[in-house]
């Protein structure tokens, strides 16, 4: 029996060209455990640098700070596992926030506004999904475009205005926890959604289909999986969730302004990749993403507490992101480095005589 064709010659890849790192299931669990250790380490670090780290109020703040990103990371996880990406998430968030502020300023009742915002999310996700599945455009390019388009719509709707006189019943989201506990609303929603998404992804036929289409789009189609329909639904879900996140953000900040959520898409992608989800699709777990969220939130929060320039938290996040993609490739990487070195040594013409003819 002859082995597979050697596919490891592919150069750098962003396109779904079929370059797959052969990580067996065991490695994934190793990633989650490793990440779990990292989270614990962050916790320990946090406590050692600031006595406030594990206090109730801080946990509340932690949840508050990263809540929206965490929530958006969940549909993003499914999208990336299915082999696509969505960079428009923060712009949908901003658009939702803008619609919220605009309609509120016009005097609409909140429930009606919620419905409209929901529909906005559906529409935004549907546009993404249709362009990607029906027209067949690459998701990277499409969502870069809709990132601009939706943010632009937010700009158009709100212009330079800032709406901030939301009723306290809603803005208390940013002040109180659920039922008086230290769990912020967004954190609570995240936990609920994480369970739902986790069950769907890991235990339902749809979830299995998502893994299949990410790992092998052709085989999934040949097995009767409706790839296009599921992907479109994933994007619509993402749109709805991002609208929700936009509403939460607006109430937390008590402000609707066109720059709400600006730049957050990269945070969301980072969190998901940190969680061990492969950018190529077909691999990843919700557990990993939850841990990734904790790691990310923990770092941001710890830095905040130590009065470290909190915006520079992007440095450790970036480093963690790099580690998350290099570590699985470590074995291959060292082998390739070794090959590169030995190849240089063998640059001379081949030896005339071969003994047993071996490497």
């Amino acid at each position, binding site marked *: 029996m002859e082995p597979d064709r050697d*596919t490891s*010659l*592919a*150069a*750098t*890849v*962003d*396109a779904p*060209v079929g370059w797959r790192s052969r990580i067996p299931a065991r490695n994934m669990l190793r990633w989650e455990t490793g990440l779990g250790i990292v989270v614990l380490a962050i916790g320990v670090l946090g406590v050692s640098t600031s006595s406030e780290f594990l206090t109730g109020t801080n946990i509340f703040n932690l949840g508050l700070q990263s809540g929206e990103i965490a929530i958006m990371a969940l549909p993003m996880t499914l999208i990336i596992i299915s082999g696509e*990406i969505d960079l428009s998430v923060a712009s949908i968030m901003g658009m939702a926030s803008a619609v919220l502020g605009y309609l509120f300023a016009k005097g609409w009742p909140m429930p009606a506004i919620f419905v409209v915002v929901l529909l906005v999310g559906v529409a935004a996700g549907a546009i993404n999904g249709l*362009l990607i599945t029906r*027209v*067949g*455009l*690459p998701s*990277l*390019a*499409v969502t*870069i*475009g*809709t*990132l*601009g*388009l*939706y*943010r*632009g*719509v937010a*700009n*158009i709707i709100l*212009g*330079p205005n800032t709406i901030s006189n939301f009723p306290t019943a809603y803005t208390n989201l940013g002040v109180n926890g659920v039922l008086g506990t230290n769990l912020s609303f967004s954190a609570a929603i995240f936990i609920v959604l994480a369970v739902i998404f986790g069950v769907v992804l890991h235990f339902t036929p749809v979830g299995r289909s998502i893994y299949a289409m990410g790992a092998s789009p052709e085989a999934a189609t040949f097995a009767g999986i409706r790839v296009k329909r599921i992907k479109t639904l994933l994007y619509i879900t993402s749109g709805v969730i991002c609208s929700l996140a936009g509403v939460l953000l607006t109430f937390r900040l008590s402000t609707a302004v*066109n720059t709400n959520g*600006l*730049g957050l898409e*990269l945070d969301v*992608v*980072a969190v998901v*990749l940190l969680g061990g989800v492969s*950018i*190529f699709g077909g691999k990843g777990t919700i557990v990993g993403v939850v841990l990734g969220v904790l790691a990310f939130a923990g770092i941001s929060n710890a830095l905040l507490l130590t009065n470290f*320039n909190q*915006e*520079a*938290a*992007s*440095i450790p*996040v*970036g*480093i963690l*992101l*790099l580690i998350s*993609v*290099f570590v699985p*490739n470590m074995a*291959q*990487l060292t082998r*390739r*480095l070794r090959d*590169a070195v030995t190849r240089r040594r063998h640059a001379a013409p081949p030896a005339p005589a071969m003994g047993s003819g071996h490497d």
Partner: protein
Amino acid sequence: MSTTLAPPREPPEAPADLSSRRLTERVFRVRETGIIAVLGLFVLITAVIQPRFVSSSNIQFILVDTSVYALVALGETMVIISRNVDLSVQSVLALSAYLSAGLFGHVHGIPIPVVFLVGFGIGVAFGAANGLMVSLGRVPSLVVTLATLYIIQGIDILIVGGNEVVASSLPSGFTAIPNVTVLGIPWLAIAVAAVIGIGAYYLRTFRSGRELYAIGSNPEGAQLAGIPVARRVFTAFTLCGGIAGVGGVLWAAQYQTINTSAGGNNFSLIVIASVVVGGVAIFGGSGSPVGAAIGALLLGTINVALDVLGISSFWDQAIAGFLLLVAITLDRLISLRLAAALRKRSAHDGT
């Protein structure tokens, strides 16, 4: 004996092939001229509605404003042609702007070309780091440059903190760069156009340039063909970074007040949008920096045109995003039609 596979000479295939070549060439040339046509149309319509649009000051403004984007688009084009992407140009530009312009305040009398070199060097350093990770690590460039975008942004924040470079610290020779005109055309635009021209020429007429296209067109085939893929990709990223560094210096010359928000929040994505609108395939293998520059020009022109037409500048981003979507949709539909036409053609040739 019967002849199962009779070998009479095949009827000449040239006619069919030449026409299919002409078809593909026509399509590709359409793409590049198409965007020029769109640009021209846009300018025309806006000028008709508001003649003030084509005033010399406006044109100069557009050219100067677009220059930085077009320049960085050159580097980004090289990377995208090889089937990669560099998201970190944004923060490289920002950091370079601050550090190089800040030199003026720290080293009195430092010659302006040296500052440009420093900016270039900063960009090269980060570009090389990207290149190493992508080429040796075989890690997807989307993730790598996302991470370095973050990291460099963080470094920028740490270094800059709450400070900023103020216009007064910059020598007048430096701040005048965007304003110098030659026969009414900003010198800056001419210089950038020249650099882009050199870049395009290099990509077209030098082996290493063609190899970049090959790498993007078929990465496995490139490896099999003996192309030094890692080296080429590394060079592309290094140059992209260096060019972004120079862009930072130019940004400083233009905007003169540099803090952590230099470059703007969507710089990378505007550049990528320019490149794609300009006809460079997002998966590489085809396109030219000239097209990318025209794409940047188009986006810049739209900005100014909207302003002149009294449409709020808040429409800019929406239009940029919309244009990008239209561009890739059109590209896709055209290539589908082309493939179908070619298939029908070869089917009817009786082969």
